[in-house]
């Protein structure tokens, strides 16, 4: 049985603007996605901001009604059997909110434990364990309003584990965290997976998805554009090499020129202070370098590197909607 099963899920928002002259816009957030997650799997939903990741998770955690399509979590339908779903899942939407800032960490957990129907003696045992797991055991008696963002995030993680759910939904759990905090949190997530929990994680950090997930669903504009293991996704672009060129002050016309070159699959430009890094995906590999240099005539060039594609390159290709065109 699937832990999570999503079947042609749709969600459209209606946006009403204006006071005098009302206009109605329909925004399609999720446009017919389907996927399945096996028990014990760590599944990632990877996509840029606005792709529909959070909307999908909200539907799966019964906070949002789909416009059409079905989804089931732990075998229960999210729309019609919401109560049973809620008993079996934990979720984090993270951020600064969602905690009672006038209470301390311990009391927050105590309160949520009761909301999850955890027996008091079980809670009394589990809360200190969880606090230690997320590294908050020293700060548990301070009011949450004094916590840093990373600490609040970690308290959220502790909260979701109170009732020992089988399935966890983590929506961008490391966003806004400093690198150390993010690394700590990722370790906690790995530990949870060791306990054979099913985890659905959303993120827009490629390396995070690569490092943690068993399988990744790449989502963009409300649709799943690819679904595979990280290795499988990389293979998706294995036919391509990536040429990385460091340039100093490249004019926009030249960028467009390069993009339209016949052997260039995709071109990504990254700004690094006064330099730009061009990442060219091309099937011709190192052979393409001379032609590329020719089109960069007049532009000061730094390092040139030809390398194997990474997950990030696969992602860029998938999300730019390209497969052959520029």
């Amino acid at each position: 049985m699937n832990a999570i099963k999503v079947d042609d899920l749709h969600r459209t928002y209606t946006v009403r603007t204006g006071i005098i002259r009302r206009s109605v816009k329909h925004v399609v957030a999720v446009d017919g996605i389907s996927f399945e997650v096996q028990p014990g799997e760590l599944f990632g939903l990877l996509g840029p901001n606005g792709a529909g990741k959070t909307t999908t998770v909200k539907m799966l955690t019964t906070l949002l009604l789909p416009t059409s399509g079905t989804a089931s979590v732990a075998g229960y339908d999210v729309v019609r059997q919401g109560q049973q779903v809620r008993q079996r899942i934990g979720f984090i939407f993270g951020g600064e909110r969602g905690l009672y800032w006038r209470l301390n960490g311990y009391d927050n957990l105590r309160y949520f434990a009761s909301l999850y129907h955890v027996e008091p003696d079980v809670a009394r045992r589990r809360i200190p364990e969880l606090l230690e797991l997320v590294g908050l055991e020293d700060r548990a008696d301070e009011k949450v309003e004094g916590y840093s963002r990373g600490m609040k995030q970690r308290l959220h993680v502790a909260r979701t584990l109170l009732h020992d759910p089988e399935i966890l939904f983590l929506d961008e759990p490391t966003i806004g965290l400093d690198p150390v905090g993010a690394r700590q949190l990722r370790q906690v997530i790995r530990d949870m997976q060791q306990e054979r929990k099913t985890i659905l994680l959303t993120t827009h950090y490629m390396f995070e998805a690569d490092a943690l997930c068993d399988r990744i669903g790449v989502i963009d504009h409300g649709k799943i554009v690819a679904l595979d293991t990280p290795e499988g996704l990389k293979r998706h672009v294995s036919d391509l090499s990536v040429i990385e060129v460091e340039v100093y002050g490249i004019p926009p016309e030249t960028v467009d020129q390069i993009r339209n070159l016949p052997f260039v699959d995709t071109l990504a430009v990254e700004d690094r202070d006064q330099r730009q890094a061009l990442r060219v995906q091309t099937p011709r590999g190192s052979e393409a370098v001379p032609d590329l240099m020719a089109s960069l005539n007049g532009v000061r060039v730094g390092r040139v590197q030809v390398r194997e594609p990474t997950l990030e390159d696969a992602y860029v290709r998938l999300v730019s909607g390209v497969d052959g065109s520029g």
Partner: protein
Amino acid sequence: MIRLRQLVRVALLSAEMGLRHAATDAFVIFAVFVQPLIIAVLGLFMLRERGGDYGMFVVVGSGLTGLWSSLLFVSGNAITTERWTGTLEVLVGMPTPLWVVVLGKNLAHVLQSLGSMVLAYVAASLLFGYPLTIAQPVPFLISLVFIVISFVCFGLLLSPLFIVNPDVQRFQNGLEYPIYILCGFLFPILLLPGWTNPVSYALSPYWAARALHAAAAGEATAASLALDWGLMLALGAAYIALSAFLFKRLLDKARRDATLGFQ
């Protein structure tokens, strides 16, 4: 099948949380304690002309204004504040029904607001120079129990009402005096035109005021108390039924329109 015990535990913990939050909130302290005290002072000066045993009458009346303020502003905002702190989403995603949490908070607020009556009593006693007496203390105390039950139910109705219909919330500030007037807190409703009486009868604070004023003055009879208590319970049940409908509507609407999160 969710066990009753667990729900009771949630309600009690919510009550504890509600008390801790509300105890330190400046707005709550003003609305529930300071404002009724000012009304008590006004009442004492104004009704002095009238003579008679007006001391306890003012204490009861101004105390009731405190109870109503608490119900209107604190309990009424119970769900709205959860949305502000971003915890509404979390609560809705929990297996515990939302109304249990709100019930717990209401209980805390109503009990806290009884303090306003105590405060008015102390102030009035100081002003007069002797402790005021309640003619029928036992009926008075039993009435308070019924009042707590009934007001908790009323609060359960108000919080989803304010969220489901934001226009109603805009009139929140304007709902203080009308209740004082219609429920006979500080003057009998026979001063009002007759056509307003049905409105008064549908409000449990009216029966609360009747019971307390009568018990304080020694005029309560078994029959009058039975009527007051009975109606407080009946109206409480009606408020619960209405609130159940509103909660369902609130959650459906929120899930459909994605308004659970912080706006």
